[in-house]
């Protein structure tokens, strides 16, 4: 979906150069999240997704030279 957005607005050479699972333990590093919120996530998310809630990715792309 995100890559499609890059393509649709006109970027070229779109590539995902990193893709890593991001789970509850990763979120726990962030001061933005309270223990209550992390507990809430642990409760509502199925156990098999606790280590892979989302993916962190790095996308690179380029503006065409004749744009």
């Amino acid at each position, binding site marked *: 979906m995100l890559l499609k957005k890059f393509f649709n*607005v006109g*970027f070229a050479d779109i590539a995902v*150069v990193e893709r890593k699972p991001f789970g509850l333990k*990763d979120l726990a590093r962030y001061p933005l999240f309270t223990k209550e919120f992390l507990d809430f996530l642990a409760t509502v998310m199925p156990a098999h997704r606790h280590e892979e809630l989302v993916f*962190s990715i*790095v996308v690179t792309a380029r*503006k065409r*030279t004749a744009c």
Partner: protein
Amino acid sequence: MSYFREEEARSIIRDAYGKVRSDGAAVAEAFYAPEELDRLPRGAIELALGVGHPVRHAGLQPGEVVLDLGCGAGIDTLLAAFAVGPQGRAIGLDMTPEMAERTRRHASAAGLANVEVREGLIEEIPLPDASVDVAISNGVLNLSTRKSRVLAETLRVLRPGGRVSLSDLVLSEALPEEVLKSPAALAG
């Protein structure tokens, strides 16, 4: 799709990021090399809130102009400023006044004179067309309710041939509705 209206989402995010405090380095240490962190003020390290290392993949060259979309406390802006050197420029853009001020303070503490900080929206980048060589962003695009608009604005300010390197979080499977409706999940 977002469960929050644009202004409501901005208000939640400004509030969360304006108030955030940290005295640890767990996020920074997960993504950045010790020798990179050694060059940075402690405050920039402790308030690293990104989800990757976009500077590593940006291929920055001396003399380039870099725009950091949603610069936060400035960790990527500062690393970019070191990479482009005194002939280049790193511009940090953030809608949260507290974060913009932190980046200014951290750039000054790092002795970087080539950092410029602007307060503004990533959906309405306050820069002229074709004025930037490289755009970077770290864990910020997912906070916007208008992601295509952000990307279109990024494309507008890039020079022809300009590059973007963006770290973010994406879903592989849908999250439950109760998570999507949570302001805490939105801000993170």
